[in-house]
């Protein structure tokens, strides 16, 4: 995907989200999963604001403290900032990440999110669904489906201005 395709995909996801929310669009909130989902969440929020005329609140989740693989790691992951500056109670939360793969990050993010309160519902929006799920998790909104094998990495490069961005599939180093 190139910059144009990414821009169109984000705009389309925003329209679909607003459409599905219907009259509940006022209760939307967008939460990006660090780090890949944060910038995408900002873009999605801007598109939603364009469609509805109101800017939904924006939050950030860092899932390091909720990972399920700490026992398998030699070192603990760095913990970045989590910031949910609005009550999640009763809201429709759009959880945003750049790539959906095993589903484990989303599992951790859901666990963390509900520790902040009880949302009315949670939707998952991702730019790329690459398959390879290890948990029963699916995206509600996906920009593109890019099947990739376990030996490959899907790299999403997003930039503030939107100039040099793309999505590419590369062989994982060492495999």
């Amino acid at each position, binding site marked *: 995907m190139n910059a144009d395709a990414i821009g169109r995909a984000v705009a389309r996801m925003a329209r679909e989200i607003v459409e599905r929310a219907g009259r509940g669009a006022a209760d939307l909130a967008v939460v990006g999963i660090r780090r890949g989902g944060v910038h995408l969440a900002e873009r999605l929020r801007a598109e939603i604001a364009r469609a509805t005329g109101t800017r939904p609140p924006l939050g950030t989740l860092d899932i390091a403290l909720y990972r399920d693989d700490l026992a398998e790691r*030699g070192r603990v992951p760095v913990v970045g900032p989590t910031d949910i500056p609005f009550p999640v109670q009763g809201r429709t939360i759009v959880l945003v990440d750049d790539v959906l*793969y095993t589903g484990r990050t989303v599992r951790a993010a859901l666990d*963390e999110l509900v520790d902040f309160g009880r949302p009315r519902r949670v939707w998952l929006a991702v730019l790329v669904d690459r398959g390879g799920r290890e948990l029963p998790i699916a995206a509600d909104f996906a920009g593109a489906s890019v099947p990739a094998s376990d030996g490959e990495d899907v790299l999403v490069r997003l930039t503030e201005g939107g100039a040099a961005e793309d999505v590419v599939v590369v062989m994982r180093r060492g495999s």
Partner: protein
Amino acid sequence: MIGRHRHCIALEDYSREEILEVLDLALSMKEVLRRPLKKVPTLRGKSVVNLFFESSTRTRSSFEIAAKVLSADALNWTSTGSSVSKGETLLDTAKNLEAMRPDVIVVRHAASGAPAFLARHVRCSVVSAGDGAHEHPSQGLLDCFTIRERLGSLGGRTVTIVGDISHSRVARSDLHAMGKLGASVRVCGPPTMIPQGIDRLGATVFHDLESAVAGADAVVMLRIQHERIGDPLIPGTREYSRYWGLDVNKASEWLKPECLILHPGPINRGVELSSDVADGPHSVILDQVENGVAVRMAILYLLAGAGATAAGAPPEKATA
């Protein structure tokens, strides 16, 4: 692991980067403490034993809360009323605790070197909660965190430590950590309480409070231990507070308006600090207590978070 370390015993052994690793992480931990639901599942199934051979409320509760917020089980073992009062040695106590398979032992002991001794004899991580007149690393880290939070950085700052430097493990940990983070550290107190050779740890010695705090960005007022009052080091609390204590007049005349006042607690009101200073605008003493929990969470997470040894861990898998 904190950098290269499996234990947290002395900030003297820690590099600047290792200290910053804990402080940066503590910032994320503080955010967890501000959540409506103050609990994360990170250390589920891990256990932390608090082994306290000296009385302590603040530090022990702080480690206990830190463990519990991270979902670790915390067990408190105090020397009074336990097998220690029946004559058990430190090593026997430790070996017995180890048989219960804790992941971290937090130890406070009156003898300098007790945590290092334990670390040589047990397989789990050891965190010192203060040993003799050696170090109190988590206090040193939380003091740095508190100053950093208010002033942005310790680089180029001046910090004055006032009180019984000779017997203070807090002073030693502060000196090591603040020096590594780029602060210039002054120490000040009665000549009987300034140890020989403290300048070799990078401190500048002052024997007069007014010049010691002039221009300082932060002042750490140490607690005068009651058991030392009346011995030859200081004749009495009135004399101590007159020469080495801060009251509102001295604070307003001698301190910069933005100067921070820290105290490791518990405060002897009217001795090191008058009440209006302890509760006044310079004081960050209650911030220190909250930050202490965040810093101890960071220490426990780094030491107990990863399950396997670095050698036995499987390669990382992407989890996007």
